């Protein structure tokens, strides 16, 4: 029988549909046999004869379609072999049982009772095993137990996620924490030990580099000859584009990380920072690890005390609710250079207060200690106040602070060691302050901090 490969695959793909017929028929036959255990009934025997015939026929059809399907490659050979033998066994045994019924005919006494009993038991046993192997072929071997509460939690098997929570960019490994989880998410369902499409395995560093049927997977330092990269960067409608079959493609960000990893030598054990990422790559990594989401987005505060809010409103503050849920507050006071806010009122909402804007409020160094308890702040505007670095000693208490605006203040470069040591700080505004640009030791600045000083530092 010579079919063209596309047509044989077309027919073959009916296999997953057809296999459920013998499964259902055999299960039903089992129920009838159990009913007939004690009390024989001629009617049930007739029904069973037909059931076993149908099971044998549908089993045969399943074998045929299964054979055609297996001609498409990518299945793990050992499991496939077992599945094949099991499937044939189910059909043959069903036929044997049917024949014993045929021989029995109208007679009350069973023909070859021991052969029949063995046939029934082994046919059903073979069906269960074959079904399991078939499932393992389609979904991967660990599919069934992956989320089992009894499974070992530190499993590093192919389906177990290797991604760990990254809290600091400096602690992340490029391959292990970024590249591998991307491949896990987008590629490994077809390129694992059990189902190795294109003979390309994407579960270990060596295998990723080695490649498969189409040649070397990754050539360190060479994007152009790295088949892995070529496949994912083709146009989506290209025949060779990966992932195929309408699975979710890699995002631009994920592609960029793979690209960067290959270009820098595709190392296995190197920290992200060892490759000295530029600001843009840093941003991308920060987004990839979700480090930018960890600050405010996930923070939920208890409901504020209404009297505290009233007190703020009555004293010239403006209070805005930042989100519908979460009780996060933004509090503003615009002194317009003449009026001063009563900072002691803010402590009452310290858990809710995440943005505080105190622009142009005539605040002095001594006033600022009142801000030390506001540890939920992630954004603070103190611009255009007559304050210097002497007043900033409260800042280390604000461990969540990401944005600090000090433009138009008297802060000088003497305050920089303190400011750059703030753990979460990402943006620091020091335009029109006393900071002398020439005295900044740029080696002390970490890449994650964006320092806005003057016009010429903005324009590259």
């Amino acid at each position, binding site marked *: 029988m010579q079919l063209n490969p596309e047509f044989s695959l077309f027919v073959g793909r009916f296999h997953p549909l057809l296999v459920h017929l013998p499964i259902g028929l055999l299960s039903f036959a089992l129920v009838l046999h159990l009913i007939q255990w004690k009390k024989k009934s001629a009617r049930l025997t007739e029904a069973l004869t037909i059931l076993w015939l149908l099971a044998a026929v549908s089993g045969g059809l399943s074998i045929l379609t299964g054979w055609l399907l297996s001609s498409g490659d990518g299945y793990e050979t050992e499991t496939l072999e077992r599945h094949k033998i099991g499937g044939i066994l189910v059909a043959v045994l069903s036929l044997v049982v049917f024949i014993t019924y045929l021989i029995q005919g109208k007679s009350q006494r069973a023909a070859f009772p021991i052969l029949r009993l063995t046939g029934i038991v082994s046919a059903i046993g073979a069906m269960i095993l074959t079904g399991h192997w078939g499932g393992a072929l389609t979904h991967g071997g660990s599919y069934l137990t992956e989320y089992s509460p009894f499974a070992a939690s530190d499993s590093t098997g192919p389906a177990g996620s290797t991604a760990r929570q990254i809290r600091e960019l400096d602690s992340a490994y490029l391959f292990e924490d970024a590249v591998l989880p991307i491949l896990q998410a987008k590629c490994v369902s077809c390129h694992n030990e059990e189902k190795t499409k294109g003979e390309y395995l994407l579960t270990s560093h060596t295998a990723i580099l080695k490649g498969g049927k189409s040649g070397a997977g990754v050539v360190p330092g060479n994007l152009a000859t790295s088949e892995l990269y070529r496949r994912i960067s083709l146009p989506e409608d290209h025949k060779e584009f990966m992932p195929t079959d309408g699975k979710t493609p890699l*995002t631009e960000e994920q592609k960029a990380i793979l690209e960067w990893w290959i270009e820098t030598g595709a190392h296995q054990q190197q920290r992200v920072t060892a490759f000295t990422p530029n600001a843009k790559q840093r941003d991308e990594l920060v987004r990839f690890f979700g480090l930018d989401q960890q600050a405010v987005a996930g923070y939920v505060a208890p409901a504020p005390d209404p009297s505290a809010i009233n007190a703020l409103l009555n004293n010239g503050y403006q*209070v*805005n*609710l930042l989100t519908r849920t979460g009780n996060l507050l933004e509090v503003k006071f615009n002194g317009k250079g003449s009026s001063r806010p009563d900072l002691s009122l803010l402590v009452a909402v310290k858990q809710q207060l995440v943005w505080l804007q105190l622009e142009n409020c005539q605040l002095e160094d001594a006033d600022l200690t009142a801000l030390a308890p506001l540890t939920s702040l992630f954004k603070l505007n103190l611009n255009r106040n007559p304050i210097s670095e002497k007043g900033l000693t409260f800042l280390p208490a604000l461990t969540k602070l990401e944005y600090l*605006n000090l433009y138009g203040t008297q802060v000088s470069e003497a305050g920089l060691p303190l400011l750059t040591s703030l753990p979460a700080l990402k943006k620091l505004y020091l*335009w029109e302050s006393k900071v002398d640009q020439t005295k900044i030791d740029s080696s002390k600045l970490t890449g994650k901090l964006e320092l806005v000083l003057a016009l010429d530092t903005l324009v590259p």
Partner: protein
Amino acid sequence: MNQFQRPLSRREMLGICKCGFGSLAMLGMFGSLLPSCSGVEAGKNQLLDHLGAGPIPPGFVPRAKNIIFLYMDGGISQVDSFDPKPRLAKENGEDPAKKFKMDATQFGDVGKILKSPWQFNRYGESGMEISELFPHIGTCADELALIRSMVSNFPEHTNANYFLHTGSGLQGRPSMGAWVNYGLGSENSNLPGYVVLDGGLIPPGGLDNFKNGFLPAAYQASLLRAGAEPLANIKPLDSIAGIQEEKLAFLKKRDQHLLQSLDGNDAIEAAISNYELAYKMQSSIPELTEFKEESEATKKLYGLDSPDPNTRNYAAQCLLARRLVERGVRFIELTCPDIGGNADRWDQHSNLKDGHERNAHAVDQPIAGLLKDLKLRGLLDETLVVFSGEFGRTPFAQGTDGRDHNPSAFSMWMAGAGIKGGTIYGTTDEYGYRVVDKPVTIHDLHATMLHLMGVDHKQLTFRFGGRDFRLTDVHGNIVKDILA
């Protein structure tokens, strides 16, 4: 005072059975949670009560608090500004009909393929290519997310303007600024939440581009004109200060009385708040439009010292926009300056070189100045700046030296809050005539803008004519790849 009393009309009677003005936005935002009108009042967040009639909190932590929309009226040419096409230079003067299939154009006067009269330079770390029309904006390239794959549904100004501003090509829908204002409210009780800075040219379609549509009247744009009196009647007419106050107090008392007798009424509530706002603006507007507290360096940065009067005009609008952002105005739109001569906005059906050059010169330095000034003050972190026309222009000539309308592809950019700077999104074909990859519709743009303001475009609805309306209608996908 009984002469002011009058019986209720049927319409007013019916109105009493509904809810008051203040709950409208609440209904839109929380409609699904709070089934009935009375439920809105009862179920209002306790916190909200204490925040008075303040803005409605958004659904998630917003990246942007304000939007500055730089409207490039008339349709800026993408192949001459932000989307370089070397093939046009190679095939300059050839017949476009032999190269690709053409749609009908507005004027049908199809000429030859026309190369861009301007060179493109690479800017910033991202190496973004921008034409020499915009040397100043070029220096901000790493702040921009450039979308080269915008598409519009309309090839004609009026419909395209309505579409860009309201999400519908027909007249009468609420403008995007009105939606933002309705959804989030103004943070400043002395200024309206939606301001249009009129540089001299109201776009085709007129003020309906900036209207509230079926939203309550308070959400429409307030127009501030360039010049000595930005708003009509902004100077009090009463020479003695106390008299005006007394008059207003009396009016308010009568209005309140009427309001009470009707048990709440939209129109009267709106009128009262309008009077109050107008009075407050008599002091807040002159303070706003005086630039005396701005340093010389800042004014220079914007180009207020430029020899070109149009640059000075637009620079003043841009500086005003920053001052409005500082004062908590949610949505600010800048229209184009009237550069005079035979250049009608960016709509160069002829004389492309002269018209585009003069328009670009008017806006380039002020816009770059605005971006840099916002950056220095830490405001770019919370302000979204959007630069867009209503459609693009053809890569082939109209006549010999113009370009016709092209809704099938145009470029726009966004910068600031929540935007991934230095990004280029989408691609056009080799002529810049049609989008070939990742098309972005006006609805997508609106959805993305609202998203950055912390509003889910699918949840911001208003019930009108028996239907829940949205700015994005039934469309809109957030352009995630340009978000930081």
